[in-house]
């Protein structure tokens, strides 16, 4: 973990409210695991005051973050130009746990809801590198909010999409698509589910996994200040007491959480 001042290599609007920023952060690129995050200081002034947490979206010598403009911090980020410098602290937290593999076992199902796709592309890339059969389900409200379909397809051929309004892929929540996929792709292998998205969706997927006795890892978003386990702002209730999203998470075993 380091706090470094790095150069913005590119910052592009990819659709609607989504942006992708590449940062010249070789140390983080070298050390970050899928599911870990960084704390970015959007401004050198104190407005906004706190850093903003973003998942490591992809690494390739540099790192990329994928973000949605929702407020003042992300708005300021979206205006950064190539060559601008920003402070970035990371890698932080505990990422996803990748399974040990034997003969293609187990299989992985990745489920992304909205901006929840951000940490999952890197995960898909790492899983398939380990020759783990990986299925990806992407859900969003509507067609132009579907994220990373191409990137996921580069990692694995099995990518399925659903939109709440049916404008693309199958219609309905991604949990409905999950049910459908489970029916059509019975597997004799153990299944591990990785999920990131809005809280309601996480809960819904976690419930299905519990019924089916699948292992399920969820990446949580909690309001946080420091990102390094100091302020105790991002408390998460678990069966083994209060944990911190920044330090113990953001990835948790769904069965550990008190929902």
């Amino acid at each position, binding site marked *: 973990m380091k706090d470094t001042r790095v150069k913005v290599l590119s910052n592009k609007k990819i659709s609607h409210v989504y942006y992708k920023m590449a940062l010249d952060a070789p140390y983080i690129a070298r050390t970050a695991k899928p599911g870990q995050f960084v704390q970015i200081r959007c401004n050198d002034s*104190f407005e906004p005051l*706190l850093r903003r947490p973003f998942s490591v979206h992809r690494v390739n010598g540099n790192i990329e973050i994928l973000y949605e403009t929702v407020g003042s911090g992300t708005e300021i980020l979206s205006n950064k130009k190539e060559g601008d410098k920003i402070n970035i602290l990371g890698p932080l937290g505990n990422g996803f746990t990748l399974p040990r593999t034997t003969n293609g076992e187990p299989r992985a199902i990745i489920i992304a809801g909205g901006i929840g796709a951000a940490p999952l592309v890197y995960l898909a890339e790492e899983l398939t590198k380990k020759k783990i059969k990986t299925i990806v389900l992407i859900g969003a409200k509507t067609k132009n909010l579907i994220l990373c379909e191409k990137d996921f397809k580069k990692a694995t051929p099995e990518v399925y999409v659903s939109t709440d309004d049916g404008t693309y892929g199958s219609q309905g929540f991604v949990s409905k698509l999950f049910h459908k996929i489970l029916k059509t792709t019975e597997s004799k292998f153990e299944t591990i589910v990785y999920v990131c998205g809005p809280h309601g969706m996480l809960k819904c997927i976690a419930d299905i996994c519990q019924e089916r006795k699948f292992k399920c890892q969820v990446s949580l978003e909690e309001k946080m200040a*420091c990102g390094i*386990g*100091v302020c105790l702002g991002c*408390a998460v209730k678990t069966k083994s007491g209060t944990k911190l999203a920044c330090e113990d998470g953001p990835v948790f075993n769904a069965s550990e959480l008190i929902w």
Partner: protein
Amino acid sequence: MAKLEVKIGKIKLKNPVMAASGTFGYAKEFEKLVNLKHIGAIITKTITLNPRQGNPMPRICETSAGILNAIGLQNEGIDNFLKEKIPYLSKIGTPIIVSISGNNIDEFFILARRLDKIKSISGIELNISCPNINCEGLVAQDTKETHEVVKAVRKITDKTIITKLSPNVTDIVKIARAAENAGSDAVSLVNTFFGMAIDINTRKPKLGNITGGLSGPCIKPIALRMVYEVSKNIDIPVIGIGGIMNANDAIEFMMAGAAAIQVGTANFIEPGVCDKIVKGIEEYLKKHKIEKIEDIAGNLDGNN
């Protein structure tokens, strides 16, 4: 080289910059981000006799140039602290001041008695922003109760006692005097200001606890005024806290009368900030040809 050493009670600090309680964890969290040896003193997160779960989420919310927090003193209790945290803290080589809080005077007493036995602890900071069981409000809002808590702790330890004052009072000088009279070696001020924020879309408070404590740059002018008033009126050292983000802020507090300062919220934004502030103070002294840090303390007489 300008001299940065200051003395608070029995503690000799190599410089006046301390990390504030609750914003620096138990120091280990920062080992890769700042040189812990360069900091004047480290004040650990407030501990209590028994473990505390803390408040419901959300516990943090950002406001204009500040943050509101309602953590609720989440901590593992003193047993765990002594077992898990003290071994590391003892090895750092920077004075360690342990912040404690109790539900009543007995708890303060028991905590202090246990810490008194540990050689590597340099001092105790009394976080008296806790409910006063004898009447409404906080201990830190009542002169008599403040006096009693400090007196009880004074009885059991010769270690340096710093009493941390709450700004949520009508007359902070009175409370500071009560701490001084009861034998406190120093006072630190301020803790956070009571505050609140509401999400107008959900029509709910932004904190699970509804109200919380405000910190950060937005509180600095008020904290500075309080440090000024208190330091004029008591004889023990005053430690200034509140929105210190850089060396200039720190120097301002010292000019207002603080013998040393604590850095809180800034640690979240710039984890290396304490080190930077030390260097900044050093540069300032050099630039202005000031020999020792004490020469700026409480000095508002201008350059001549």
